[in-house]
């Protein structure tokens, strides 16, 4: 098996690398310090077709494939994992399920909003008592005539206080367990929708995370996404795709940290020579490079399987697990190479390390990925 990026994929990488260097890198530290959503950057990404990159052009999207989407997240995350997160969530967790499960009317209404309309998307599954065990959600949606009445709350919602369109999961029949969960497209302008607490996080400071509250929220009946009771399988399948995005984000963080480490160790002289000339440094850098290459192959494999319509649940879980753990290891070791400087905010390593940690947690913890992988091993 051989992975050769197409000429178009190579151009997308080059475009995204130039954009990241000129538009993202200069503000990454400031975005982290101020915890401000990088609105201007995201607006530009809409203009370039990166927001909604996999949405067909007839709905205003970029018309590309999951690998192209992953390459964009990877490049952005080399400098700013927050920006990568916002894009990954919008594309993988909002546009993708609407495109996959939406009716023609839903696609015609919402996909142009999420592409040319510059409306940001989000995904609301997690609740205070339903994290890894997503089946225990308490948010309810009750059908009353031509609409559902939704009550409950969701937490840790990426893009929470900036998004206009949410894919929300709620119980429509509690007696049926996971088969009683349904998916809905909810607009932030619907009556009864409100944003709760803005989370203060360890990292990903530019990514807006919030609680979402539904208090007798009126959701039109036609905004049911897929069939009633199919919400859990929609959520799980959507997260399979989302994990490719997080693998790409984690890989980007690792690659960014590796680039920093290589540049620093070549210039930092101790005991009379650059520290890159010490074998201990070289072996550590070699391991970082090895992990990035392996992670890239796993991630590309999962993205290509998705593009080809093959089953990719296990591949996505492996890519996400490997890349996120490698991002954590690489940022930690790279910071160590910087010594005391790495521990300061004068260098990006401490930010990268804080940002890397979440990739082992969200969209399925590392433990959940191991459950998914082992569940697909015929044990």
């Amino acid at each position: 098996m051989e992975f050769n990026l197409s000429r178009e994929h190579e151009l997308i990488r080059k475009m995204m690398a130039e954009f990241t260097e000129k538009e993202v890198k200069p503000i990454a530290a400031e975005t982290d310090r101020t915890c401000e959503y990088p609105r201007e950057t995201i607006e530009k990404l809409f203009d370039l077709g990166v927001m909604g990159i996999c949405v067909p052009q007839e709905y205003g999207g970029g018309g590309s494939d999951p690998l192209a989407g992953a390459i964009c997240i990877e490049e952005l995350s080399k400098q700013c994992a927050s920006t990568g997160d916002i894009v990954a969530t919008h594309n993988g967790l909002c546009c993708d399920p609407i495109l996959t499960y939406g009716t023609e009317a839903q696609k015609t209404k919402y996909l142009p909003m999420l592409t040319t309309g510059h409306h940001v998307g989000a995904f609301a599954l997690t609740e205070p008592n339903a994290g890894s065990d997503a089946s225990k959600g308490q948010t309810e949606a009750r059908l009353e005539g031509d609409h559902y009445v939704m009550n409950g709350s969701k937490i840790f919602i990426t893009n929470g206080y900036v998004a206009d369109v949410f894919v929300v999961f709620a119980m429509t029949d509690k007696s049926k367990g996971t088969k009683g969960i349904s998916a809905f497209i909810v607009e932030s302008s619907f009556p009864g929708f409100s944003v709760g607490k803005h989370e203060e996080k360890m990292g990903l400071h530019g990514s807006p995370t919030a609680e979402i509250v539904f208090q007798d929220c009126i959701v039109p009946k036609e905004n049911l996404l897929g069939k009633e009771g199919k919400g859990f399988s929609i959520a799980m399948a959507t997260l399979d795709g989302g994990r490719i995005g997080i693998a790409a984000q984690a890989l980007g963080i690792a690659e960014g940290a590796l680039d920093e480490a290589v540049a620093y160790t070549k210039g930092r002289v101790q005991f009379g020579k650059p520290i890159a000339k010490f074998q201990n440094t070289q072996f550590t850098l070699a391991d970082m490079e090895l992990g990035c290459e392996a992670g890239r192959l796993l991630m590309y494999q999962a993205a290509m399987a998705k593009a080809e319509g093959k089953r990719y649940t296990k591949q996505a879980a492996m890519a996400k697990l490997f890349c996120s753990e490698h991002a954590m290891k690489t940022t930690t070791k790279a910071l160590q190479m910087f010594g005391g400087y790495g521990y300061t905010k004068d260098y990006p390593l401490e930010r990268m390390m804080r940002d890397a940690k979440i990739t082992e947690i969200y969209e399925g913890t590392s433990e959940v990925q191991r459950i998914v992988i082992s569940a697909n091993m015929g044990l």
Partner: protein
Amino acid sequence: MKIFVTVKQVPDTSGKVAVNPDGTLDRASMKTIVNPDDLNAVEAALRLKEACGCKVIAFTMGPPPAESMLRELMAMGVDEGVLITSREFGGSDTFATSQIIAAAIGTYGVEEDDIVFSGRQAIDGDTAQVGPQLAEKLGLEQVSYVGAIEKKGNTLLVRRMLEDGYMTIRIRTPCLLTCVKELNTPRYMNIRDILSAYSKPMTVMDYGTLKDHPLIDNDTIGLQGSPTNIFKSFTPPQKGVGMILSGDNRSVAAQVADVLAKKHII
């Protein structure tokens, strides 16, 4: 209406500059980029295209890999590419290059409302000669160092940037403008245009295509025919730290005079 843009693939001088033993640039070992001023020319062309709905055709002369640069420009929105490539054209100086590119543009025909955009100068040669020579060969009116453009019917109101100010000039089409970086900020490639870039028309013109064109003088093209010959290329030695004099104006002037006198300059 058509817009022609001339572009050049140049070595990325932010990296290492390599020179061949014969004094010419070792282009093969250096990364390449689109000449920065040419990107301003492309951006100007694309903005005019968006306003007028015309076609933008990019021309470049260079080795076959220069096609990848034209594809990148197509990924920004350029409609068509023309790659002028032939062993016979290798080593051309600005005089030779401008007649070859003029002939290539000439095969498309420059009509009344057409415009040719060039970058002010390329960062490898820094001559700023090809644009103006191209205008002369094509018989077009020209404005160099353009920093602003406003289209009004078949005339353009342009700002010609000078060291100590600017001139505002009204010019009729067809014409040629050489663009400076103050003109605009070049756009990035975008997903839609990237996906269509490799299906857009690419024309390759070689010596056989152009040799009989009236603008081509076969005696003045290529390395042999070029009036300019490179005697030597070298990286200039770094200057020393120099001499820093301090004091008030009068005493510094006296010190300068003293130093110059000691060196027998005055």
